[in-house]
């Protein structure tokens, strides 16, 4: 950062008065003093608390925190549960659900978002009306989203019932009550909520592409498909990255949606690791195990976010 050096010299008093009075030294330190509380809060309540959680995960805490280290027993249990697929342990269910949900949620949101953005970018009349329609679900909480979709997907009340009334009596859609499929309903509601926002990101990206490049390609005889496949989509790489980061961290943090949409699903079959953590910590009195699962969630996010933040903050000296 080249600006640092120049800005320190900025303060005129620095050169004018060699012996800095208490007052002017206070003035110099003022920016740091102002920032200090926020920084201290972050250090204590984010990083300190993370360490605390890590510590708890190595204890034998049950209902209440216990501070005697008892080794990595919680992790050993999670590790054992990771392979306990028949009958599936809660942890096994949670992480397989995470895999299914994470992959489908991210993939469908990206695909649908890009697709809608490309459609909307075709000089559409009424774009100003359509965009807010695609986007508004992002303003709703996961709880409201869950309540709405719970109703919509309920076999006795929603879609199935409606199609039956319209004469399609063989239609059957009970995923929300089916322990093997309930996680896919979470995907549907999640995609519904976030895909419009991803669309907006892609649309902003598309609008930022230089029209000259497109014209040149068209003159060279590229078809629309080729144009997108070879030129536009590669140019949108940064948007893909940002969108992926947003979706990945939303996916790992997802908690409320499962609660509101499925109440955990039949026998906890819709759990994600976040639900596992909450249940084990606050309801099943297995605090150490809950903490260990939180640490694993954190490490997963860290593995995705830290390289990203590092590259974002490092480059561009501006």
């Amino acid at each position, binding site marked *: 950062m080249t600006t*640092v050096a120049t*800005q320190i010299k*900025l303060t005129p008093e620095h050169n004018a008065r060699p012996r800095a009075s208490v007052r002017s030294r206070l003035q110099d330190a003022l920016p740091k003093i*102002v*920032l200090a*509380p*926020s920084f201290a809060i*972050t250090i204590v*309540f*984010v990083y300190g*608390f*993370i360490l605390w*959680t890590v510590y708890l995960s190595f204890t034998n805490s049950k209902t209440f*925190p216990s501070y005697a280290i008892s080794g990595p027993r919680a992790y050993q249990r999670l590790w054992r549960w990771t392979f306990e697929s028949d009958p599936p342990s809660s942890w096994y269910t949670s992480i397989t659900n995470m895999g299914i949900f994470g992959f489908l949620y991210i993939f469908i949101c990206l695909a649908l978002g890009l697709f809608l953005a490309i*459609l*909307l970018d075709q000089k*559409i009349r009424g774009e100003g009306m359509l965009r*807010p*329609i*695609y986007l*508004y*679900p992002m*303003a*709703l*909480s996961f*709880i*409201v989203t869950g*309540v*709405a*979709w719970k*109703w*919509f997907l309920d076999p006795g*009340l929603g879609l199935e019932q*409606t199609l039956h009334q319209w004469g399609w009596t063989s239609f059957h859609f009970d995923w929300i009550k089916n322990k093997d499929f309930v996680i896919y309903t979470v995907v549907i509601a999640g995609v*519904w909520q976030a895909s*419009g*926002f991803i669309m*907006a*990101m892609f649309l*902003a990206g*598309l609008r930022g*592409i230089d029209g000259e490049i497109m014209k040149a390609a*068209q003159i060279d005889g590229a078809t629309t498909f080729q144009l997108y496949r070879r030129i536009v989509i590669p140019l949108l790489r940064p948007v893909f990255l940002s969108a992926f980061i947003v979706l990945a961290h939303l996916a*790992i*943090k997802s*908690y409320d949606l499962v*609660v509101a949409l499925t109440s955990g699903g039949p026998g906890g079959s819709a759990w994600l690791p*976040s639900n596992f*953590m*909450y249940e084990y910590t606050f309801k099943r009195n297995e*605090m150490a195990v809950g*903490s260990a*699962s939180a*640490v694993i*969630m*954190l490490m997963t*996010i860290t593995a995705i976010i*830290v390289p990203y*933040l590092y590259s974002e903050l490092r480059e561009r000296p*501006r």
Partner: protein
Amino acid sequence: MSVIATPARQSTGGISARTVNRIVVYGLLALFALFYLMPLFVMLVTSFKTMDEIQNGNMLALPQAPTFEPWLKAWGETCVGLTCAGIKGYFWNSIKMVVPAVLISTLLGAINGYVLTKWRFRGHTVVFGLMLFACFIPFQSVLLPMATILGSLGRFGVTLRNATGFSFGLGNPTVNLVFVHVVYGLGFTTLFFRNYYEAFPTELVKAAQVDGASFFQIFRRIMLPNSMPIFVVTVIYQFTNIWNDFLFASAYAGTGDAMPMTVALNNVVNTSTGVVEYNVNMAAAMIAALPTLLVYVVAGRYFVRGLMAGAVKG
């Protein structure tokens, strides 16, 4: 980019490929519009129907005899857990929590962003990086320690009240939630203001310094008056996030009178006693969604910009 303007290569007689193309594009767009609107539409019409009509009618049909009853019942009578006084109290709980939390976190973010761009010091990137990473952590990793600390503060508050007659807000669930949301919202608000002030001409700040303006004078006279757009973006973003939060709300105010709206709604919907009143549930959900929807309708442009700023980093 008008891409579809590619020469129609196989124009077949009457209808050109271009027209077909347009029809397909508009058709798809309309189809997706339906997909996004459907749940809201169903929720809305259901909330105006009688139970009778819900059980015997079609989900998509408009209410035959629209009634405002479910809304009134959701607002003033429905049962949340064991208390049956509607969700109005919880709605106000949310307001009481959201307003201070948004204001405090936004102001702190503004001043942080100002320091991090215009008063840089050695290591400012590290400080910012650490604050930024905090935006992304799964809150499960801080949930338990925070619960412990809030519990201790609550006990200390009781002691204080016994000694002085006043607990200074310690142990009050709403105060706790305000604190939690400020702490974990700081990263975002700082990010917003930092990115905004990064593009703000440093020359103006320098000139003011030469003229002898102090740190706070520059902030108040130069930065703040030019920060309206980012204030709107940040306030909307924070408002939406905090209003919609469920995890902290259920962990720190999950029972009792201080529940925020999201927790209360979840309780209303998942109460399994007696007949499930779907129309009341839907009305309650609509009430819970209204504030953020309203903000979105009024200031949608800023809302999107805020989400983007949150997404597209430092």
